[in-house]
């Protein structure tokens, strides 16, 4: 690996699917041994009409991983990266061990090595008990773990994880996070795309927020939160009819005038504030004076959700476990196999 270069480097990447522009000049750098979380908002994919004002000059468009050009040195690069996509790319009609051995053989490992490596990985991913079962009988979490194991067969220094926990139950999700955390502490460089902001918060050293195919902000989670600034004061009123009164009380405390968010269904109002606990006492007195009864009141630090909202003007897209994308790729007789 070339020293002094980032493990992953992208400059001015563009990609369009037909009329839809997915990447509009994306720049990224991931230092060796760190995790970059990519947060994106797919809904705002822009339609590409004619020439784009941010068109990078042809010569600046490039991407390198571990110092290798992704186009010119693609063959060599493949033995240095691991890839785990949103769809567990494992064969349902093979057992867990057969899947890993097959991948090992396709990395051109000798047979005995491939077998030994499969056993190691099965152990590490807690799949020993299921090693001889067909993968189609696995749960969603087991499939994801096997898929991740498959991308680690050759111990790649750089790993790409595309929404690794989408559609998993909370427990499998935590288990997945633990495994990923271990890999990173072992020195693996990781590029993680996710739509779960808490996932990025937990796993990533740095976060890049991508909107319309460009990075619009990047930094550590704390940097980004600091950029949104202040704390949020949130309250839930007992009677919905009191919500407007509560919002009026809150308005003068909001950092920017009129910046109170109200959600009538949840009887919920919130505002970004500065002043901490002292301010909280003042708000309570004012609400009391206005005769507003509360179910809940609290201050909380900004989350990445707030960051995302502030930066993009809309919420991050929340994938749901049964989204058409996760079933649409299957077809025919083996439908059941995709969890």
């Amino acid at each position, binding site marked *: 690996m070339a020293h002094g270069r980032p493990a992953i480097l992208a400059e001015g990447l563009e990609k369009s699917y037909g009329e839809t522009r997915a990447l509009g000049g994306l720049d990224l750098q991931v230092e060796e041994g760190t995790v970059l979380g990519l947060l994106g908002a797919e809904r705002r994919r822009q339609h590409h009409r004619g020439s784009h004002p941010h068109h990078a000059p042809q010569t600046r468009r490039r991407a390198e991983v571990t110092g290798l050009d992704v186009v010119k040195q693609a063959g060599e690069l*493949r033995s240095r990266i691991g890839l785990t996509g949103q769809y567990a790319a494992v064969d349902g009609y093979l057992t867990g061990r057969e899947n890993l051995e097959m991948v090992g053989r*396709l990395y051109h490992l*000798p047979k005995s090595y491939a077998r030994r490596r499969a056993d190691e990985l099965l152990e590490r991913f807690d799949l020993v008990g299921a090693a001889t079962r067909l993968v189609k009988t696995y749960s969603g979490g087991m499939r994801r773990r096997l898929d991740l194991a498959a991308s680690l067969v050759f111990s790649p220094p750089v790993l790409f994880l595309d929404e690794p926990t989408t559609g998993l139950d909370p427990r499998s999700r935590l288990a997945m996070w633990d495994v990923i955390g271990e890999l990173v502490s072992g020195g693996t460089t990781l590029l993680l795309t996710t739509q779960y902001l808490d996932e990025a918060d937990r796993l990533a050293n740095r976060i890049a927020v991508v909107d319309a195919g460009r990075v619009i902000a990047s930094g550590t989670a704390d940097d980004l939160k600091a950029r949104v600034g202040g704390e949020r004061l949130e309250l839930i009123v007992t009677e919905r009819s009191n919500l407007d009164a509560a919002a009026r009380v809150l308005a003068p405390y909001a950092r920017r005038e009129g910046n109170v968010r109200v959600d009538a269904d949840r009887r919920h109002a919130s505002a970004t504030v500065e002043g901490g606990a002292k301010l909280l006492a003042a708000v309570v007195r004012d609400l009391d004076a206005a005769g507003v009864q509360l179910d809940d009141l609290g201050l909380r630090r900004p989350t990445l959700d707030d960051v995302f909202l502030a930066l993009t003007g809309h919420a991050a897209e929340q994938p749901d476990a049964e989204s058409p994308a996760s079933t649409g790729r299957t077809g025919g007789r083996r439908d059941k196999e995709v969890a």
Partner: protein
Amino acid sequence: MNTSIDARTNKALPPRRSRVYWALADGLVLAKRNLVQIPRVPELLVFSTIQPVMFVLLFRYVFGGAIDVGATSYVDFLMAGIFVQTVAFGSMTTGVGLAEDLQRGLVDRFRSLPMARSAVLTGRTIADLARNAFVIVVMLVVGLLVGFRPEAGPLGWAAAIGLLLLFSFAFSWIAAAIVLMVRSVEAVQQAEFIWLFPLTFASSAFVQTDGMPGPLRAFADHQPLTQIIDAVRGFLLDQPVGSAGWQALAWCVGILLVFVPLSVSLYRRVAAR
């Protein structure tokens, strides 16, 4: 990291061999993957065998009495046609299997590996060659049970079986090319049927072509299946094969020369999406 194999420390792995070696080795790894799956989805093999058995029974007992094929008994005439038809329709399995690989995420995994791109196709076609060999044996047993009495010597048998397997391999590659153009499991079955059906029936598989009207007969006499059927029939019944043997071989080799590179380049395009 607690691993015994590490790309960073153990650069000696994997051994250096030529590209052709790895293309073949990768193809065999995937062929093995496809073969071990066959007994795990027994329905597929059972149903793909039942259909040709039904054709044997249909032509042997329903139509056979009404079809005149000269001196040869109809069941002896029929079986070469059945073998070739079975193998031709067997290429549909290649198509369906490949379409499923493309639709499921598995191809994404293969794309990220330093393996030969062609291996997905060679693995599939090699496995189907093995599967077709098995089906041919089953059909031979069925034929013997309903009165098929081949008279071939060892050479005749070798030539007949060799030609059938070569033909099976060639047609799998045609099916692969079609799948890579069509790309959905459902559409593949229809697309394959459309060209296989006329090819198998407008041939010498079930009747002699002399009875067909002029243009149809011209087509039937000159299309590859008739050449292959005539050659296989000649070998099995120990009758003169004439030019059919060479023509059959030329067709198979020609198909491979066109469709192997075509399929591989189509696959690269699909995989590069």
